[in-house]
């Protein structure tokens, strides 16, 4: 087992820039944390899940599809060096696993895999959550994992690529710390996770009336924050940008909370009310995706509840839904 002191972390990731395009959590001057390059700011692994979804490293809010000019189409190239993205919690990793599958199955989305293919993903866990709270161990779904045991980062590799990165670390420990942490993390029962599962059962059993969605929809101000924060929201729109002698086509995140999301050229709009759009947002995660993909696609990261200005993130809706319809 390898480990790193917290002081060694910045240099360790800076050293990887020779072979990888490194993105890791940094602290901004205003105190918020986001993914950045080593040297962009102080490395900030502590504090739990990043406010913005780390999956954006592979599926950015806006990205080029192609540039068309007289000589033909030019597609964006893959990163010169493979991405190495640090800062995924176990829940973020579950989200990444889900969208990897989504973009791979059927027509393989080459734009997504241009960034994702060959990338290394680094998880964070242990007592590095907000205020020193625990974050569950990922125990997989990433190439290697940094586990904070309150004094050092245990470095746990899960893939061959991860092992190759960390093999250069000289120090080793085998004192049972990882096993102890795994047991300590396992005792925590997440109430939000239970609520999401129960809400899914109620929606799939058709126990939630339309009036409920209308009520929730009335509270929506269509800011789209929920969709933009959600790591498993993958809907996108397409826009052409016209310049002299060329056109750039790009795609950018879209939101099912917007009136025009499904409006057709004929004017027909299958999501023509706030209630229908709010139902779609929740139903898609808790009922449609289980039907299609075999699993709920909310992995309880909490971002939509954190950003929603009117209190209708998925946890809040799930709790209200259970309270009102759970015992009918």
């Amino acid at each position, binding site marked *: 087992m390898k480990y790193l002191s917290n002081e060694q972390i910045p240099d360790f990731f800076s050293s990887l820039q020779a072979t990888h395009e490194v993105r890791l959590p940094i602290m901004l001057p205003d105190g918020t944390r986001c993914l950045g390059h080593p040297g962009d700011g102080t490395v900030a692994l502590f504090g739990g899940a990043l406010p913005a979804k780390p999956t954006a490293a592979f599926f950015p809010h806006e990205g080029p599809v192609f540039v068309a000019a007289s000589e033909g189409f030019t597609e964006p190239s893959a990163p010169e060096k493979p991405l190495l993205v640090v800062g995924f919690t176990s829940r973020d990793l579950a989200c990444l696993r889900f969208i990897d599958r989504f973009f791979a199955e059927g027509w393989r989305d*080459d734009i997504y895999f241009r960034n994702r293919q060959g990338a290394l993903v680094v998880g964070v866990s242990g007592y590095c959550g907000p205020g020193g709270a625990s974050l569950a161990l990922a125990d997989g779904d990433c190439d290697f994992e940094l586990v904070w045991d309150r004094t050092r980062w245990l470095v746990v590799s899960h893939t061959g690529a991860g092992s190759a990165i960390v093999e250069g670390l000289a120090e080793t420990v085998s004192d049972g710390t990882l096993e102890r942490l795994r047991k300590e993390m396992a005792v925590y029962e997440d109430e939000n996770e239970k609520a999401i599962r129960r809400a899914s059962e109620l929606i799939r059993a058709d126990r939630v009336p339309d009036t409920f969605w209308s009520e929730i929809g009335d509270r929506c101000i269509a800011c789209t924050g929920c969709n933009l924060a959600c790591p498993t929201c993958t809907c996108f729109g*397409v826009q052409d940008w016209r310049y002299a002698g060329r056109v750039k086509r790009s795609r950018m995140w879209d939101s099912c909370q917007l009136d025009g999301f499904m409006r057709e*050229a004929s004017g027909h709009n299958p999501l023509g009310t706030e209630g229908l759009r709010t139902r779609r947002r929740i139903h898609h995660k808790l009922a449609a995706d289980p039907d299609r993909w075999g699993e709920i696609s909310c992995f309880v990261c909490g971002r939509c509840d954190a950003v929603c200005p009117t209190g209708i993130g998925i946890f809040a809706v799930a709790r209200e839904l259970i309270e009102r319809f759970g015992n009918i």
Partner: protein
Amino acid sequence: MSSSADGTTASLYVPVDCEIIAVSDLTPHEKLFRLRLKNGAPLGHLPGQFVQVSLLGWEEAPISVASSPTRTDYFEMGIRRTGSLTSAMHELTAGDLIGVRGPFGRPFELPKLRGHDLLLISGGCGLAPLRSLIHYCEDRPEEFGALTILYGAKSPGDVLFKDDFALWETSARFACSRTVDQVPEGDCYSGGVGLITSLIPPLEIDPHRTVAVLVGPPVMYRAVIAELKKKGLSSDRIVVSLERHMRCGVGKCGHCTIEHLYCCQDGPVFWLNEIEHLRGAL
């Protein structure tokens, strides 16, 4: 796939060049475009499929193919002027280039239609995708039983493919009926007037031999399906093609979902029993 500037394999999202061979007016609002891929290859579609039409600077839109794959020298699309892309399309003429991606989507399931009497029902623009199947039937009449075409339009001025209809009406292979919802005062139209549902009760249908295929505006489906059920047609003998907003055509952009289904990939053609229980499908 088109070739990119650096010669590598092009992306799923890069359109291929397509030449407009001819453009003709269908109505004051709709034009018929005859096209062929610039590389000379056939489009490779089946009736019921669509392509993502791409105009640089105007993004993309899903458009159904209105011609049969049995006619390999070209393919056709009937396009209504209804937004910026289709308005730009209407300015194009023979010799101009557009981009297409596809064909995409689940087609009409020809193996399951073969040997059956077909009741081909469309309303408004729905005749464009259905025309692909009608032309296929026209070219392979031995594969099907009795062929009946029903068509409804808002007004005489909105009737699409009048030339085709004139041929179908005189063909021994088809039984045709058409109607319009209303006739403007002073119009010399002399055909039937009334909703398309009025064309169904007079029909003699063997519900065990017949498959009905419906393509039309959302408002048409429930009423027509109700009439078909009165004739004894069960949901596994009714096919619908659904219109949805699509930005990618390949099941990724999320705009065309119907509960757990993606209209662009799981459809746009569905058997009614696959979707009638889904919220918002019809």
